[in-house]
């Protein structure tokens, strides 16, 4: 099949619908390797979009390649937990064996090796993606074998199956993970209640969003249900946010692996309540390997009359589609996610209007977290009052934590809300802990004297990440890793985040190179104050959180790196002369700067 045949077949399968651009581009790239200028032109013509818009989308997502990529594209997950498990050394060893510079495609076009944001395998790292397939538990010997397979050009499909094994690592189950619901049970209970009573049950349960922000699910569904659609084909939509990009979070991975029926059932219940016929599950590109199993779960549900028309003999109709993301953390923000679902760059929208009144395709849309939707099944089956008995007054039910870092038993822990940080540390076998990064980089860094605090909306709200750092860890380096993450993931739309995240990253690197001074610390505080208030969305508003928290709670980790009390340049002055030394062959005293400016002045 020629390239144009491949392109035409893909766009035809997607009905030449531009809003399906993400899926079109991904499927074409999976077959052709990359998205060439000619490919983008042909796709644009087929979907009837301006070419600049198509290239605008293609260039936004990390997993789309508008330049040729290696036949083997290796991306090491670079979350701090992967770092702590030694990914940097492994990646260096891999690059050395392949005679390769990170980020560069080898001259023969065979392979490229680079880093990527957290792939959600923190409990079984160091992890990586090979041609966007997840591999866990990298070791030095696996690196050696992998390099051999790449050199021999063995297709990834023929690589050892155990490399691709992803374990659930469920360590503690509570009402959700230990549920005994059979597929269809919750949905049929909801259908029996009717939409109004089902909505009332969700409100009685006082269910709040599990993505971290904690908005009332009942109110969200009610607002969506009450919003009138617009245009000639008014509709409402349910969107399941499975763009689990917050570093250190992997509970949705497990829910979608072993509890997918519950998630789809929750989407159906939401659809029933709000009056939607269609649901979209937005799955992060890192979880590409889950696409086929999820599709077969959907097929089974259609077969069993749990999806489609006349569900369980009623006149309720509901369909679910899966959309894959392509490597953009910002798409976890609900309006950016909707933009992405519509085939555009994941840029958070101006709000209001909120998605519940104007979301996907401008129609009322409820966007809910994977865990929230799964929890709604328990409410459908057991009632709101039953659900509200669990957890605390303001935080009902349970929360699934993704525990990783310095502990004996990383994995998935489900607790009723209100559990203390100390209890979780004890259960996961963490000793000598100095800090926990709760809810990921955008959350809160909890120091030892705060381990009595509780996981709950009223104390420590969380999207699920729980990264443990023992006292051997350098909390400055933790914050620096997160600063790099935010600079990489900023969408670039608003000034404070686009430039601010880069300035913060540069200042953290300056301090790491021992070029810092108290001046730089003041600057970090100043940037925090600006970005927190002026940014367009949550990414920019919270991007300085890890720096701010560690500056307050682990200040000596910064101070011991400072070079002097006076202002210091960010770059090494003597190194700035090295090119000229090389070109002139000079190495006399005048061709160097003295080690510091004090000596300089004496000289």
């Amino acid at each position, binding site marked *: 099949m020629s390239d144009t045949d491949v392109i035409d077949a893909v766009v035809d399968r997607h009905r030449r619908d531009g809003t399906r651009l993400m899926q079109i581009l991904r499927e074409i790239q999976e077959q052709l390797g990359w998205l060439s200028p000619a490919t983008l032109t042909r796709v644009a013509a087929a979907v009837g979009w301006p070419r600049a818009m198509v290239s605008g989308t293609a260039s936004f997502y990390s997993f789309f390649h508008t330049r040729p990529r290696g036949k083997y594209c290796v991306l090491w997950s670079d979350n701090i937990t992967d770092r702590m498990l030694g990914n940097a050394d492994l990646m260096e060893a891999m690059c050395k064996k392949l005679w390769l510079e990170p980020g560069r495609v080898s001259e023969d076009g065979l392979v490229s090796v680079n880093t990527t944001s957290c792939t959600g395998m923190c409990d079984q790292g160091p992890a990586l993606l090979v041609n966007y397939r997840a591999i866990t538990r990298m070791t030095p010997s696996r690196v050696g074998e992998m390099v051999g397979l790449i050199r021999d050009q063995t297709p990834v499909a023929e690589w050892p199956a155990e490399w691709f094994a992803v374990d659930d690592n469920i360590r503690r189950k509570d009402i959700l993970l230990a549920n005994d619901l059979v597929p269809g049970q919750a949905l049929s209970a909801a259908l029996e209640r009717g939409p109004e009573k089902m909505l009332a049950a969700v409100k009685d349960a006082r269910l709040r969003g599990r993505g971290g922000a904690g908005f009332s699910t009942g109110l969200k569904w009610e607002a969506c249900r009450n919003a009138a659609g617009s245009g000639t084909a008014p509709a409402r939509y349910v969107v399941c946010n499975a763009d689990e990009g917050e570093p250190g979070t992997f509970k949705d991975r497990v829910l979608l692996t072993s509890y997918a029926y519950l998630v789809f059932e929750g989407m159906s219940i939401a659809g029933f309540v709000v009056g939607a016929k269609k649901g979209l599950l937005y799955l992060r590109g890192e979880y590409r390997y889950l696409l086929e199993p999820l599709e077969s779960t959907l097929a089974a549900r259609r077969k069993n009359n749990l999806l489609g028309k006349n569900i369980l003999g009623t006149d309720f109709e509901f369909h679910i589609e899966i959309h894959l993301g392509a490597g953009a953390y910002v798409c976890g923000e609900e309006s950016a996610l909707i933009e992405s679902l519509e085939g555009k760059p994941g840029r958070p929208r101006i709000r209001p209007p909120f998605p519940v009144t104007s979301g996907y395709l401008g129609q009322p849309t409820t966007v809910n977290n994977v865990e929230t939707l799964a929890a709604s099944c328990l409410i459908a089956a057991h009632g709101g009052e039953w659900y509200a008995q669990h957890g605390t007054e303001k935080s009902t039910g349970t929360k699934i934590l993704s525990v990783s870092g310095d502990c004996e038993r990383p994995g998935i822990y489900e607790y009723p809300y209100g559990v203390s940080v100390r209890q979780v540390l004890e259960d996961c076998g963490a000793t000598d802990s100095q800090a926990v990064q709760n809810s990921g980089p955008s959350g809160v860094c909890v120091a030892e004297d705060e381990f009595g605090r509780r996981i709950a909306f009223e104390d420590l709200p969380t999207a699920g990440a729980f990264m443990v750092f023992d006292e051997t860890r350098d909390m400055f380096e933790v914050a620096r890793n997160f600063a790099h993450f935010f600079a990489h993931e900023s969408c670039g739309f608003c000034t404070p985040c686009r430039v601010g995240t880069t300035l913060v990253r540069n200042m953290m690197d300056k301090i790491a190179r021992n070029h810092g001074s108290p*001046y730089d610390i003041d600057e970090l505080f100043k940037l925090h104050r600006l970005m927190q208030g002026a940014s367009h969305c949550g990414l920019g508003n919270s991007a300085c959180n890890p720096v701010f928290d560690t500056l307050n709670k682990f200040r000596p980790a910064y101070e011991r790196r400072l070079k002097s009390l*006076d*202002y210091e*340049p*960010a*770059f090494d*002055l003597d190194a*700035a*002369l*090295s*090119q*000229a*030394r*090389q*070109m*002139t*062959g*000079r190495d*006399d005293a*005048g*061709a160097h*700067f003295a080690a510091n*400016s004090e000596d*300089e*002045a004496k000289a």
Partner: protein
Amino acid sequence: MNAPMKAAPAPVKKLRVATTSLAGCFGCHMSILDIDERLLKLLDLVEFDRSPLTDIKHCGPCDLGIIEGGLCNAENVHVLREFRKNCKIILALGACAINGGLPAQRNHLDLRDVLEEVYQTEHLLGRGGIPNDPELPLPLSKVHPIHEVVKVDYFLPGCPPPADAIWKLLTDLLAGRTPALGHGLLHYD
């Protein structure tokens, strides 16, 4: 002298000022001279240390150091550090000191390519090879504005800053006022 004096005034201690042009064109210094007859007033208030105006070669302890131009070579850095060490206040004067200006246009080129082009490849220039005399300062790989290397207290933009702006800023500083430039005095071109 508006206020009546209670007693005979003690002789006013003149402020000591140093100036230099680093990677600049001396245009900012020309603009200092453009304050014209006000120079005489200025000389009542200040005395010059190291400056192209005095030909003093090294900067002693000063109240104010005025820097024109950015940093393109090792000597620029030495001079800037000498000023920072000796001057209580450093003023970055003009576009090049503030953002690198025209010399910084080479920053998107690799220094190696620049030196090769000028001293080796270029038809008429390239005869002598890249100069390696120890008397010559080595170029930095990139041109930097001065605030990237030392703490700078005040900035006066412009290419060059207008004489009126220089006068306003200096008189503000001498009077102990935080400098404030109104419309027309603050410009970047």
